[in-house]
């Protein structure tokens, strides 16, 4: 019952001259304390938009409806000033592009200290705490790393630094935006191990936005699969990966190189041009009659699993 984050019926529309873009449609997600909830989706699925909504970073002319409650408090419709007491302090972001997110002229240790200062850690203690944080993130020589500049470190290491900055402020909700994007296999492996380690020692509540299925599977507790702005399947990670219900989820898993790289035909519909029935209909191997004209609603197929597919509707 202690939902740290409760997203209810979140709808985000971007009005463009050429047509409205329905980036997110009535998305509802609940994240319990200590849970790692993963948002999985491809480009245009709406996952980034949801992350931006939680972080209060949507552009001004976005048309937003629904609600997001953090610890019971509404945060979607509040002002920027009211939100600022959460950002960086209680709600932290691990951003997507570490090289662009770090100040190139400031030593890494100092950038982490800034985070500590937000929490009110006195200057004298900051050095030791920076060391602890870095050690927790699998850095063998924390002092050397703290004294380095971002450009002296590899891509994977920079990603761990941005994670350090995010966790140093002891947030209650961590939001990660595609943390392994663009990393090579070595950096990706260390990043995944780092997140796994963090999961065991810190038990943060974590909203992880990614299209890296390995990362999702290794550290996620629950997974929400997004397609063209909607959740089409959600439930515990292990179950969904071994027995996906929705054909898109199954298709994503089958498209992985280690599973034979079977491609799904077609592309997802553009967000300004959504078809009347099931959004996945044109690519679906089943193509049920209802899917052509009737848009499926999301239903519970067990106490923990939901899916949006006519094959499961009663």
């Amino acid at each position: 019952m202690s939902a740290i984050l409760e997203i209810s019926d979140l709808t985000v529309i971007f009005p463009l001259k050429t047509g409205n873009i329905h980036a997110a449609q009535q998305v509802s997600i609940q994240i319990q304390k200590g849970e790692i909830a993963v948002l999985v989706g491809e480009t245009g699925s709406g996952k980034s938009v949801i992350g931006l909504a939680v972080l209060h970073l949507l552009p001004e002319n976005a048309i937003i409806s629904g609600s997001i409650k953090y610890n019971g408090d509404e945060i979607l419709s509040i002002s920027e000033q009211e939100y600022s007491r959460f950002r960086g302090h209680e709600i932290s972001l691990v951003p997507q592009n570490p090289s662009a997110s770090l100040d190139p002229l400031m030593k890494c240790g100092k950038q982490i200290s800034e985070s500590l200062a937000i929490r009110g850690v006195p200057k004298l203690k900051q050095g030791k705490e920076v060391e602890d944080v870095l050690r927790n993130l699998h850095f063998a020589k924390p002092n050397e790393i703290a004294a380095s500049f971002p450009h002296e470190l590899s891509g994977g290491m920079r990603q761990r630094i941005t994670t350090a900055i995010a966790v140093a402020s002891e947030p209650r909700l961590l939001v990660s935006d595609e943390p392994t994007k663009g990393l090579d296999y070595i950096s990706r492996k260390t990043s995944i191990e780092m997140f796994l380690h963090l999961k065991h020692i810190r038990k943060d509540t974590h909203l992880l936005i990614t299209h890296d299925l390995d990362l999702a599977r290794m550290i996620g507790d629950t997974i929400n699969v997004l397609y063209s702005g909607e959740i089409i399947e959600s439930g515990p990670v292990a179950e969904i990966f071994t027995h996906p219900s929705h054909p898109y989820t199954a298709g994503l898993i089958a498209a992985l190189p280690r599973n034979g790289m079977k491609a799904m035909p077609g592309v997802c519909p553009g967000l300004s041009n959504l078809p009347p029935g099931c959004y996945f209909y044109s690519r679906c191997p089943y193509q049920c009659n209802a899917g052509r004209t009737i848009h499926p609603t999301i239903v519970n197929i067990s106490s923990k699993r939901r899916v949006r597919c006519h094959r499961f509707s009663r």
Partner: protein
Amino acid sequence: MSNTTVIEYLQNVSMSLHSSEWLSRYKQRRDLQIVSGLIILLLFIGVCAPFLAPQNPNNTDLDRKNEGPSIDHILGTDYLGRDLLSRVICGLQTSLEIALLTIILSFIIGVSVGSLSGYSGGWIDNIVARVIDVFLAFPSIILALALMVLLGSGITNMILMLSVVQWAAFARLIRGQVLSEKNQDYVLSARAAAFPGWWTMIKHILPNCIMPVLILATIDIGHAILTIATLSFLGVGIPPAIPEWGSMINSGLPYMRIAALNVIVPGLAITYVTLLFNIAGEGIRDITDPKMGHEGSL
């Protein structure tokens, strides 16, 4: 519509390549519409100057020296009794003619040299870059003065010599653009397709780099007019028979107290035209690539 548009929208990136985009941005900018209208008007006056001038600018009338505004001399007369308004209008033609020809010539030289140098790379580029640096290191007025003394006065000489002063700025700008553009994947793709260098340069590299240079050229028209006025103020360059704002100020100075308009009007004209071209140049930049404006001035 492609899925990339959501991300584009969120990052406020504008596609600055398509003329329809440029047109819609232009339509939103009232100030730029006014400026472009004024420039067209200016060019019109410049071309038709001899017909628009109420009187012959060189008609002296020593009985009516340094008069104030009157019915047949709307702005008054200068120290030789010549109609000020006519001289100002014809001065515009002189300035525009010299400035435009200068900019066109220096643009052609600068872009050719700079782009060839940038694309070649290696020792050729090293040498040319140093040559450009030398030219840029000279204060332009001093260089212009020295060259005028060497070549003698006259409009053709002035155009040639101002181009010599001006080309280096274009060369440096286009060279920098070409240096960065030639490593882009699409240029590598052109090389892989075995297109010769000249084809790649003309069809791909230059069209993608030329806009900042065009903007610089527009702004430099204003600077050229200022330089021309400065030189003729200093008594160098334009033969005295041809009306030119700078020399008008020079000759009007001794009579400032009794016929101030002879100094003020040409001065305002110089300021106004220079400013107009500056704004036009920045306007072109805003319309064709708004992002450029945030990276600092050209």
